[in-house]
């Protein structure tokens, strides 16, 4: 009896588990489910939780992830209106809005990403062709229109994505702006040239300052020397004048005597060496040669 009850209970448990496993499905939070009956879609579940369905051959459930997905578009080179080559890396944030349409049109995330990639890249090329490079990168803030361009691209793609693929694209954004490799080389060359220019300017300024200082120094030195010579000459002049004054002061006392005295001094100086003198006997002391009287 007991054994029978156990057996019955066990049997019921097994059957219950089998039913549970086969006739229910769970939709996790953030996912959506499409219930199909023999391939024909019957019912879309957008809320998480436990749902019932007929077992396998009759009804099947396909789970679609409805959470936001971010994907990076591939690198594409494009031209701005002023014919500048740039690589604009962008991303798109999207989510499945209509799981049925999504599954029917695309079916997988890889497929969705590649279709969206095409859509967004196309829109990017179109929109960017209408703007100059200065709308993307400029030191003048008024020129920048990055947000506006992003919004324009989003506008271009959002309706198509929704109607064709059942996807809502929430945002298209720019990640990074860079140049194609070949252009990068030229930008580097320009940066180098600019830097070389600054370097040369610094050196030139230095040289100019230095030579200014040097020439000023030379000028100053010459001035000092000139002043000094002038001063020395003045001093000497003063000295002479004063000496003359002293002489004349002294000589004013007795001009006759001065004449005499001075002549005597001169004789002392003049007659020297090998001077041969021819004298007359009419002045002393030679007059005494004539007679003993002068």
């Amino acid at each position, binding site marked *: 009896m007991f054994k029978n009850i156990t057996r019955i209970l066990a049997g019921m448990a097994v059957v219950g588990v089998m039913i549970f496993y086969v006739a229910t499905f769970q939709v996790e939070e953030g996912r959506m489910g499409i219930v199909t009956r023999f391939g024909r879609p019957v019912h879309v579940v957008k809320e998480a939780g436990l749902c019932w369905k007929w077992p396998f051959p009759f009804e099947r459930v396909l789970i679609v992830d409805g959470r936001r997905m971010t994907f990076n578009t591939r690198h594409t080179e494009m031209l701005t209106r002023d014919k500048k080559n740039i690589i604009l890396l962008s991303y798109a944030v999207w989510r499945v809005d209509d799981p049925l349409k999504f599954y029917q049109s695309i079916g997988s995330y890889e497929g969705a990403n590649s279709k969206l990639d095409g859509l967004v890249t196309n829109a990017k090329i179109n929109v960017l062709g209408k703007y100059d490079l200065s709308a993307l990168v400029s030191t003048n803030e008024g020129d920048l229109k990055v947000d506006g361009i992003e919004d324009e691209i989003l506008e271009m793609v959002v309706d198509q994505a929704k109607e064709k693929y059942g996807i809502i694209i929430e945002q298209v954004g720019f990640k990074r702006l860079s140049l194609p490799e070949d252009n990068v080389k030229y930008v580097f060359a320009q940066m180098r040239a600019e830097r070389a220019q600054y370097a040369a300017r610094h050196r030139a300024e*230095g040289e100019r300052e230095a030579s200014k200082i040097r020439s000023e120094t030379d000028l100053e030195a010459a001035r000092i020397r000139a002043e000094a010579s002038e001063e020395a000459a003045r001093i000497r002049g003063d000295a002479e004048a004063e000496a003359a004054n002293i002489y004349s*002061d*002294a000589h004013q006392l007795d001009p006759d005597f001065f004449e005499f005295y001075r002549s005597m001094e001169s004789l002392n100086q003049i007659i020297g060496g090998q001077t041969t003198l021819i*004298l007359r006997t009419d002045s002393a002391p030679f007059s005494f040669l004539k007679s003993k009287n002068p």
Partner: protein
Amino acid sequence: MDKQSETAISTTPSIEKAAGHLKATGLAVPVGNGLTAVLCLYLGSVYQLAVLRALGQYLLLLTGLLFMIRLLLGMKAELAEAMAEKTASAPEDKESEDSDEESNQPDKVQTVIDKIEDFAAGLRNYFNAVFALIVGIYCVSTYSTTGAPAVAEKTALGLGLLCLVFAFVSLTVSRYYAEQPKAEFPEVQGLGYWYKLGVWIFMIAAVSLFMRGLKFPMWEAAICKIITIFIILLVAEMLARAVGAMFSPKQTYDKITIKIDFLFLRILVSKANPVSSFFESLEEYFGINLKSTWALDFAKRSLLPIAVLLALVGWLCTSLVMISLTEQGIHERFGKPVSREPLEPGLHLIYPRPIDRIVRVPVHRTNVMGIGYEEAVVGASMLWTKAHAAEEYSLLIGDGRDLVSVNAELIWRVGDIYEYLYGSQNPEETLKVLAYRVLLKETVDKNLDGVLSENVETFCDRVRDAIQKEAEGHHLGIEVTAFYLKGLHPPIDVAPDYQAVISAQVDKVTRIINANVYREQTLPMTRAEALWAVNGALAQKNTRLMEAKGEAIKFTTLEKQYSVSPELFRMRRRMETLEKTLKMKPLYIIDDRIEGVGGSLWIDMRSGARSEF
């Protein structure tokens, strides 16, 4: 001769039966077995399924043995034919030319008998040994290769079904062999064992493939290893038997068989289920009878309830979940979160698996995301001119004419676990692109000098706040802790030129300093010269004035003398002067009267000359 023919006749039935078996199965069994072996090996290598490979190895071993048996059966059939011929022709030739016939006929039979005995002594053993060795080496070499199986779930299920089919075929074959009479066809028992074990192995393989198909490939590797070990044991026994047979005494042709009922097989499959056959082998070899112990009985009775209880406990264990220190959890019921509030670390009791689930996320751990480069070189220094990452991104700034490289790190952690789990499929990737976007917006309106001269701290704070705002706008559930700039510099290719500008600035200052040095040297020297000149002039002035003053004093003194008696002074002075100046000088004194009348021209006043008055 009679004895010989009698013994020949007595063993004819088994040989005839053997011939009969041969006709019945022919090459079908060995070839079929071989093909199955090849198929299993091929599938195993295509899908990288080790289980199929092990199956193939088992079947390969069996194929070798089957070919040997086939050869032996063939020879036995030949012998049967020869004997039949002999017995058929023997009565006719009994009367005449006995000796001749008898010398011919036994030859044919004898050659076949010799052939069989040679086969037993030579080919059978060598072939078994070598074949066993080859398969053994193959098994050992593939024992530990566990490549990741490259098989879709549906294919795995299909292969599992295939294995079930093979198991069924194997069962049929083993049943067939079980019904053959063992006395006449000695190899039959061994074949039965092989195929019975084959059934078990195929079923185990099928189960493991089904498990893989249902995403539970947990014990596959272990199962495969066990099968391989078992095959290696069989190989060892085969090798041992072959070598043993090489050294054992020569058997007579009628006793020659290929023994394939190996010990290891018998242990597992002599009875319907492996456990009881194990016990029977134990009893056979060691005399231990366990069949009637109470423990065994109890174990048999309680096996089922215990298994069920274990399953139940295992199932109920899924209702106790431990959330560790660094994690938080979200409680889901049938896939839908019960509440937005996360569960804190600790032990939590929930309904078991299909009903409730707790999703755990390491929330408190901070993560680092590198921005602006790929594959940092570990331990590299952040120098402007040395590469510190495999690839650094260059951001275009400065009206499209400047490029700058940014190396930064974003430190983040999970803030709101609900949004993190159910908001985005790839929140980390989203965070990364948002970070790049913020960086783009921050740098795009500046040029390189502007970026390089920014205050790093305020820049980082601004960027962090902006990224946090964007993350909140996208409902990522991520909290940005910090944004660090590890390096901000012009691209490595042009960094030397930037450094050169600084060098030029230094150079400028150096030149100015040198000029100042020149100035500091020259001016003092010049001033010293000037001072020297002026002082020289002053000295000269002093001298001159002193001279003048001396002269003046001399003059005034003399004047005083003069004023006392002028004439006298004059004369005295005059004489003194003449004395001084005319001394030692040649003089010509001419009398002034020469100009008048009668005077002598020459008067030599020098010493030694005479004078006339």
